[in-house]
């Protein structure tokens, strides 16, 4: 089986929350080596050469993101994004609770890589336990002199602050996160300027996902070439895939990018007895479905994009033939409508209307004209908003309507079938 334990090594076997256990396994050695022996530019160069791409959803090359920071004397910040809330994703939750020291070491390395003296971790409000576990880990590391003033006597200062959100999916969007971290409503900002130029408190800022930063630790230990040696041409290294839905052994599995979709389903125990595959949502709630014909495609950023979907955060939801896709579409649209911050009209209103229309389908009161309307409304939302939330409404909806139109047609109110649009509406309002 192609599962490779890199970040997940030791999880479920030993208590990595224990500072001593983590240190005995070689923990914080890379941090010490980086501060003592390497220049920040060398850490950046390693990250760049490894081909590591953002593991939070957008897949932007990490080294490149860091290199956008202007070369000036302004304070700069590293923010670790642990506001994991993409439907189907549960990897950061696991890392935070099971391997807090690894997460911290990654943050320290990332901060050093951009020569920052103050790093933040933004933890989702619901992860209260994770927040406590991480805060304890941070206190232990601080007591051991791993952060603070004049680390290892090198003159380098670095402080890390833990910040807990309070329930808002949109704070996982990097500029929404920065606003929330500044004590404001978590509404995304207009870009440009990008955070690298004007981020937290208007200063150059890098926002990286938990998993992205954590991979810096093995990359420093084993080298950029080791990481770049696995994966596909433009999708290098390993990735934790959160597999859930209709599989026998849902869970987090760490694999090399480029593992096939079929292999991933098998890793998670395969489908239940006697069931057949209908679809897979390969990159969280924001992604379109892929189908049977993509089973032997490699799971990497490019292939998923080519299949009309995306790899996203690595949330891999499997649907078998018991699935009611009308309900699933309603569920995800309701999610985005609920989580829209409300700044942009297409997302705020469009999401709400789609939810209303899809709710009719769930109740078997859909109108003949609705399917065409859903297509038009959803395409009217995409691309017209400040952030990607609005754009996330359409992909899943569109992919399942196109693939399983019979499931939607079966929910059309028979009374509306022989009427034109306007009288059909009157019928539905009765």
């Amino acid at each position, binding site marked *: 089986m192609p599962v490779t334990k890199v970040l997940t090594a030791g999880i479920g076997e030993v208590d990595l929350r224990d500072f001593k256990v983590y240190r005995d396994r070689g923990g914080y050695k890379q941090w010490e080596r980086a501060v003592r022996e390497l220049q920040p530019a060398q850490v950046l160069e390693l990250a760049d050469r490894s081909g590591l791409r953002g593991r939070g959803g957008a897949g932007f090359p990490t080294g490149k993101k860091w290199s956008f920071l202007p070369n000036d004397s302004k*304070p700069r910040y590293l923010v670790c994004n642990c506001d994991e*809330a993409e*439907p189907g*994703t549960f990897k*950061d*939750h696991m890392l935070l609770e099971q391997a807090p020291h690894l997460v911290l070491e990654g943050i320290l390395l990332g901060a050093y890589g951009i020569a920052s003296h103050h790093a933040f971790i933004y933890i*989702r409000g*619901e*992860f*209260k*336990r994770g927040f406590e576990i991480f805060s304890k880990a941070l206190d232990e590391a601080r007591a051991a002199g791993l952060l603070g003033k004049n680390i290892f006597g090198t003159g380098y200062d670095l402080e890390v*602050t833990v*910040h*807990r*959100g*309070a*329930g*808002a999916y949109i704070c996982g969007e990097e500029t929404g996160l920065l606003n*929330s971290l*500044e*004590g*404001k*409503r*978590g*509404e995304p900002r207009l870009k440009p300027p990008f955070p690298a130029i004007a981020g937290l*408190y208007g200063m150059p800022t890098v926002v990286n996902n938990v998993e992205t930063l954590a991979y810096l630790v093995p990359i420093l230990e084993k080298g950029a070439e080791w990481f770049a040696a696995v994966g596909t041409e433009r999708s290098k290294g390993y990735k934790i895939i*959160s597999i*859930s*839905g*209709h599989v026998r052994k*849902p*869970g987090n599995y760490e694999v090399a990018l480029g593992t096939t979709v079929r292999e991933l389903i098998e890793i998670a125990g395969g489908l239940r007895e006697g069931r057949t595959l209908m679809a897979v*949502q390969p990159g969280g*709630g924001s992604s379109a479905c892929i189908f049977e014909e993509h089973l032997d495609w490699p799971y990497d950023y490019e292939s998923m994009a080519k299949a009309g979907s995306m790899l996203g955060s690595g*949330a891999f*939801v499997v649907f078998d033939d018991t699935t009611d896709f009308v*309900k*699933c579409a309603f*569920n995800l649209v309701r*999610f985005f*409508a*609920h989580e*829209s911050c*409300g700044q942009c009209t297409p997302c*705020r*209103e469009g999401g*709400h*209307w789609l*939810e209303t229309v899809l709710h009719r389908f769930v109740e078997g009161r859909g109108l003949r004209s609705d399917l065409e*309307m859903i297509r*038009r*409304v959803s395409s*009217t939302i995409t691309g017209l908003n400040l952030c990607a939330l609005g754009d996330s409404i359409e992909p899943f909806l569109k992919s399942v309507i196109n693939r399983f139109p019979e499931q939607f047609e079966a929910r059309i109110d028979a009374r509306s079938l022989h009427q034109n*649009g*306007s*009288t059909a*509406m*009157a019928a*539905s*309002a009765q």
Partner: protein
Amino acid sequence: MQSFETLYERLRPECERLIAQYEHPRSALLPIVHLFQQHEGYASREAMRATAEMLELTPAVVESTVSFYSLFFRKPVGRYVLQVCRGLSCTINGAEEIMAYFREKLGIGHLQTTADGLFSYEEVECLAACDRPTCMQVNLEFFYDLTPAAIDEMIEAMRGGAFSVAPIAQTRPPESTWAIKQDDQVATGRKSPGATDVARPNNAGGLGDASGVIMLDRFVNKEIAFSERSNERLVRDSRAVYDVLEDGEQHAGH
């Protein structure tokens, strides 16, 4: 019961410590409100005012910010806040049955609190524990793989005061819901308030168009003119409604 002033005095040093963590004091807004909510059970007006005072903001700015976040309760809640996941992975693995069981067992619905002030119930978005559906949080502690039997046991333990998770502080008795009036949108998932004095806010379709279909079609399909709507239906609905719509047509230039 202690007064808010006493609590404020007591928490002040902790608030100062939180503020000192950041280059800009306002960043401590969420942590400070979390702290007050932990002690009061909810984010009270007094707490928001105190936060505003410490951060040199207006109370309105603090309240606006607090209202953005679903984990801040602006009204008291029950001793146990039960938040059941309605995310996609849980839903396709039986979450609907679990939610129906909770509703029936507790006799309350989404965003409601039981009359005895013991339970508050909410159906929340994906909790990032999709490998063990259906999952939930009780006062933000995770519970996984829910079954009716496990729920019975859980509720029993809470009623008997022997549950593994500490109850929420309750400085004031809760009402039937903690959603605030202008926050009906939160309960229904709607974001814009729409008209304020109609039965269903955000009903952009206006009178006689409860589902908003007509409005939406006007918006999307320009060719379906307002006047093409069924006149019989409008007459049937009521003369008053008809008059209103006639006015509307004139304004729309038909």
